[in-house]
């Protein structure tokens, strides 16, 4: 195969093409791939997960219909709110909706019911048999979940690399895939917890509501943050086209997750049975620490994503469609972006700047989808920017 690498007359365009090709931005994804081995394994675990979910939930639907309905309704709303946050985090070269959905369903169905639940149940029983019931009661969550759940949720990034390798190009991609997988795992687990609380209270619904409130507050820094860190760590470990391998960092991130999960689940026993007030305080501080670590790792992953947006849109700066400052704001972090918008002056000007940035990102999406071609949609996206400015 002869590879003709040409020197392009316009280095800006060359960088744009390179960025589109290497980032996978705007790539369409086909999920059904009969020749893809991972596709078949994934499908198999999904079917096993759905069947097991029906077995676990099915008999309870009639007996505990109220708590299950309350849990499903509340955690759906909660899940949508966090999904909105994750989508905001994925604002540079976004992952296709199908892949986000795949990661979500993997975490909620395949990871939970197809994998983790079997392991957890067996380990709980094994601990009680070999170490005693009290030891099992106190430590089973800390000794099972950090391994089983982190790996099960984290496999989302392995599955996506298997079925859509062109999509996972940076650690940020791993981060977002992990966040969706972890989020789904979390909300399915939350519904199970509400059910279990009701089961342990003769079917009364009140205690389940307390569980839902607790899990809502403490879940803000829950599975979705852990799994985001784990999956980004996996990308660092193996390296991807836009992310040179950094095995040390990758292993650190992948270990941090189960260790943190162990400390969280084992807190009551580790702290020597503290009072409820002390335990709550520790958990709130822990929640805050996790959120800070999450943001720090997110920022760490960003540079390749930001560079992609810059490369794709730089020719638009050269052509005068957007300004250099606007591009800087577009690739900048949230706060710098806000500062740029605020600096516009009055309300109307700030609004315009905000809309221009959003429209510029739309233009980037269209250019990437068209693989750099001048299509009607690209021209329209460009015209929109002009219209907003007018």
């Amino acid at each position, binding site marked *: 195969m002869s590879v003709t*690498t040409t020197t392009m007359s316009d280095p800006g365009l060359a960088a744009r093409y390179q960025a589109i090709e290497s980032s996978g931005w705007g790539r369409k994804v086909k999920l059904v791939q009969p020749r893809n081995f991972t596709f078949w394994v994934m499908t198999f675990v999904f079917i096993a997960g759905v069947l097991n979910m029906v077995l676990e939930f099915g*008999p309870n639907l009639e007996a505990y219909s109220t708590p299950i309905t309350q849990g499903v309704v509340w955690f759906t709303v909660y899940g949508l709110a966090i999904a909105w946050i994750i989508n905001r985090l994925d604002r540079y070269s976004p992952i296709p909706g199908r892949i986000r959905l795949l990661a979500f369903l993997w975490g909620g169905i395949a990871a939970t019911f197809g994998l983790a639940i079997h392991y957890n149940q067996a380990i709980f029983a*094994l601990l009680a048999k070999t170490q005693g019931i009290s030891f099992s009661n106190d430590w089973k969550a800390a000794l099972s979940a950090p391994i089983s759940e982190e790996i099960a949720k984290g496999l989302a990034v392995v599955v996506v690399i298997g079925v859509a390798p062109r999509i996972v190009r940076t650690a940020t991609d791993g981060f977002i895939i992990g966040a969706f997988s972890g989020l789904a795992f979390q909300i399915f687990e939350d519904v199970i917890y509400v059910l279990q609380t009701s089961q342990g209270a003769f079917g009364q619904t009140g205690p389940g509501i307390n569980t839902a409130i607790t899990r809502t507050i403490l879940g803000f820094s829950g599975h979705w943050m852990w799994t985001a860190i784990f999956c980004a760590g996996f990308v660092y470990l193996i390296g991807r086209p836009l992310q040179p391998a950094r095995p040390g960092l990758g292993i650190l991130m992948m270990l941090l997750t189960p260790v943190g999960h162990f400390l969280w689940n084992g807190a009551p026993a580790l702290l020597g049975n503290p009072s409820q007030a002390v335990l709550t305080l520790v958990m709130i501080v822990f929640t805050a620490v996790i959120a800070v670590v999450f943001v720090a790792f997110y920022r760490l992953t960003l540079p390749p994503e930001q560079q992609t947006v810059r490369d794709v849109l730089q020719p638009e700066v050269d052509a005068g469609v957007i300004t250099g400052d606007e591009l800087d704001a577009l690739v900048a972090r949230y706060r710098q972006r806000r500062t740029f918008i605020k600096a516009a002056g009055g309300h109307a000007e700030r609004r315009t700047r905000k809309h221009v940035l959003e429209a510029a990102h739309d233009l980037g999406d269209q250019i990437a989808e068209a693989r750099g071609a001048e299509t009607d949609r690209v021209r329209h996206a460009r015209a929109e920017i002009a219209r907003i400015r007018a």
Partner: protein
Amino acid sequence: MTTTESTTIDQPPGGDALPLPPPDDWVPVEERVLGFDKRTLWPGLVVLAVWVLWVHVVPAINDAIDFDNPVVAGDVVDLGNEELTFVPAVGWNLENGVLLDEEGIVPVALGSGVALVTEDAIGFDVQTAFWDGDAEALLDQVLDIDDALDTVVAADVQDTIAIVNVDGVPGVLAPFRGTEEVGFVATYVFEDVDVNGTELDVGVSATVIAEPTADAEFADDVVAMLRSITYHQMAVEEDEG
């Protein structure tokens, strides 16, 4: 990893676009093995390995080990704050439940204690939770749930029987006789239990399910266990000096 994901631009863009990428499902001939894309093997194998290990190997190890935890004389199960307790029958197998006087463990909170003891083809399952109502209402609730879950079929339930524990606290019991299993659901409600200064009622249910062939000699054990479910508020220790 996937070496063929070249980031080189193979062709000049002809001025205004990249060439179309290869279709996702197109497998280059040199990457085929048994009809599959070689490059997609490792992620699938990783997932498959985890599935085999967790869904088959670990549960198989668990199944190979018997639960052997026989109750010895003097064992008392803590159903909450060491105040709500129950005495399991000697020789039965304690499969769930925390014993009194265990050191260095997270104590059992009132309203959360559980126990399960088994013998031969009989299971004696105790659940506790705060319950705002009497023992009859609790029994109705437990039977409703059992009926919905098909663990006890309503049609098999006979009339209820009044019972008392060893302290004389009244409870109520509903025997059932089905084709597959026989047994009863019994409930007590211990009123005005002191929970961190608040007085609450704690409900207890004991569900006994036996195969119809279960040995009748265990009936005395079952009755004794049922009567042994008691609540004694711990004496408030006086501060000396």
